[in-house]
């Protein structure tokens, strides 16, 4: 995770475009100023960041399904549940599944685990829009490479 850049996930472990599922990993940093305030003496990942991590995981899945033709933007978060604390230094594994691809929107369900323990889950809806700027698309391509997005899978 690069929390200062709001990059919540580190690598894509698996992307299955047939099953429309993705698995990603996110290494929670040992130290960050966020943990100084959240909370003093009891550092835990804020629920909003766990939700964002699930949204970003879902977003990469949707980008894959749509072959990077459109960008998913977060629209609705439902049933967001923080089921357990996530601490500095822990490895978060997030799985997301595309539940529905509508006209101009997509809905996923995501779950985050540390080891086998379920820590968070949510149903997330995204609006789908053309990339608003070519440089944005270029940035997403660079990010895709950085996190190991299997670009050959969407080229087929």
């Amino acid at each position: 995770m690069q929390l200062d850049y709001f990059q919540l996930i580190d690598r894509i472990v698996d992307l299955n475009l047939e099953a429309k599922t993705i698995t990603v990993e996110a290494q929670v940093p040992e130290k960050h100023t966020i943990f100084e305030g959240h909370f003093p003496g009891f550092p835990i990942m804020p629920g909003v960041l766990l939700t964002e991590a699930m949204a970003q995981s879902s977003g990469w899945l949707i980008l894959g399904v749509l072959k990077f033709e459109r960008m998913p933007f977060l629209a609705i978060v439902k049933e967001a549940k923080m089921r357990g604390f996530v601490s500095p230094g822990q490895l978060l594994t997030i799985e997301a599944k595309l539940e529905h691809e509508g006209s101009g929107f997509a809905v996923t369900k995501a779950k985050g685990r540390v080891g086998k323990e379920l820590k968070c889950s949510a149903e997330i809806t995204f609006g789908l829009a053309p990339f608003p700027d070519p440089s944005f698309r270029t940035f997403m391509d660079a990010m895709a490479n950085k996190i190991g997005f299997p670009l050959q899978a969407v080229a087929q």
Partner: protein
Amino acid sequence: MSSTFDQIANIIAETCDIPRDTIKPESHAIDDLGIDSLDFLDIAFAIDKAFGIKMPLEKWTQEVNDGKATTEQYFVLKNLADRIDELVAAKNAGAGAAT
């Protein structure tokens, strides 16, 4: 079995917290019920799931923006119910043709 309109009205009532008895076949989803685009995403998801279809919202929006259709054709609920019935019929016809 409830009518398409009844199913839509129930979905809108539940999704947008609008009293069911205020939702009429003549109601305009936007002008009368005040449903915004975000709530309509939620409604579209529920309708797609309930009827096993994909409402072509983007196509409809484009038609309205291009002046080829009015919002009433798609967003007055009795008309929306007709559009959904057409989509379901087209889906069933496609499924029949495939077998």
